[in-house]
C-alpha cells in the first residue's frame, strides 16, 4: 500500500516540474513537438534542461548533447545497481532502461523488501513518465501562447530550475567548493571561447576534485 502511495506522490509532484521544462524549452525556441520529444525520448530532467540551457546560451548542438549525456551518466549507474534486483531481459530491459531516473531509483531503494523495491521502481518510473510528459505538453503550449519570454520571466526560470536541481546536491564542503570554482571557471571562460564550452569545461573540475578522497 505505502509503496503505491510513495510512487504516486513522487510521480505527481515531480511530473508537475515538467511544465517548467516545457515552458523553458519553448522560450529557448524549441518547438512544442521538440519539447515533447525530449520528455518522451530523453526523459531525464537535468539532462533535458541542459539541452535547452546550452542551446539557449548559444552553444552548439554537439555541446548540448555532450553536456546532457555527462549529466545523464548517473542513470547508467542506477541501472547497474537495479539490474540484479529487477532481473531484466528482452523488451522489459528496454522499458526499464528508459524509466531508470533519479525518482524511480530513489523510491525503489527506499523500500525495505525486494518485492516492494521492484514495485516502487515500476510504479514510480511509469508514474513520473506519464505526468512529466503531460505537464511538458501543458507548459510548452502555455509558453507558446505568450509572447516575449523575458516579459514572463521564462529566461530566469531556466537557471532557477537548475538551482533547484543543484540545491539538494550541495550537501558538504566539497560540493560547495566545487560549485564555487565552477561559477568562476564558467564565467571566466565565457568571453573567450564559443558558447557552451565554458559549461562542459567544468567537468574537469569534478574530475580534479573527485580524484582524491
Amino acid at each position: 500500500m505505502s509503496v503505491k502511495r510513495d510512487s504516486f506522490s513522487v510521480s505527481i509532484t515531480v511530473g508537475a516540474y515538467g511544465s517548467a521544462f516545457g515552458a523553458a524549452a519553448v522560450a529557448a525556441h524549441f518547438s512544442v513537438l521538440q519539447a515533447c520529444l525530449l520528455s518522451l525520448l530523453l526523459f531525464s530532467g537535468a539532462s533535458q534542461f541542459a539541452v535547452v540551457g546550452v542551446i539557449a546560451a548559444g552553444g552548439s548542438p554537439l555541446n548540448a548533447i555532450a553536456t546532457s549525456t555527462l549529466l545523464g551518466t548517473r542513470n547508467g549507474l542506477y541501472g547497474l545497481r537495479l539490474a540484479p534486483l529487477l532481473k531484466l531481459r528482452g523488451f522489459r530491459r528496454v522499458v526499464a532502461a528508459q524509466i531508470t531516473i533519479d525518482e524511480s531509483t530513489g523510491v525503489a531503494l527506499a523500500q525495505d523488501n525486494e518485492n516492494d523495491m521492484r514495485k516502487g521502481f515500476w510504479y514510480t518510473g511509469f508514474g513520473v513518465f506519464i505526468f512529466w510528459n503531460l505537464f511538458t505538453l501543458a507548459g510548452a503550449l502555455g509558453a507558446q501562447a505568450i509572447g516575449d519570454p523575458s516579459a514572463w520571466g521564462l529566461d530566469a526560470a531556466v537557471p532557477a530550475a537548475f538551482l533547484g536541481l543543484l540545491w539538494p546536491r550541495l550537501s558538504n564542503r566539497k560540493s560547495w567548493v566545487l560549485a564555487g570554482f565552477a561559477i568562476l571557471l564558467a564565467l571566466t571562460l565565457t568571453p573567450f571561447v564559443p558558447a557552451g564550452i565554458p559549461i562542459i569545461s567544468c567537468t574537469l573540475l569534478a574530475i580534479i576534485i573527485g580524484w582524491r578522497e
Partner: protein
Amino acid sequence: MNAFWIAVIGSSALAFITKFLGASVPESFLSHPRILRINSLIPIALLTALIAVNTFAVKTKLVLDHRALGIAAALALLIAKAPFPVVVVGAAVTSALAYRYF
C-alpha cells in the same frame, strides 16, 4: 536538419544508450570508488556552470540583467525551504518584474 533537431535526437539517443548499458553490464563494472565519486560530482559542476551561464551571459558576453534578480529570488526561496515549483515561479515573477520596471 537544424541545430535543434540534432540536439533533440542526439541527446535522446545517448541518454537511452547510457541507461541501457547500465541495465546490461555486470555490476562490478564501473563501481570503482573513484568513478562513483567523480560521477556524483559531475552534476554539481555542470548544473552550477549552467546556472552561471544562463544567468550572467548572453552568448559570449557577460551581462548583469533582470535574470540576476530572478536567480537571487530563487536562492532566497530555496534557503526558506520552498518547494521546487515555487522556486521556479518565484524566480520567473521576480525576473519579469525587473525586466518590466528597470
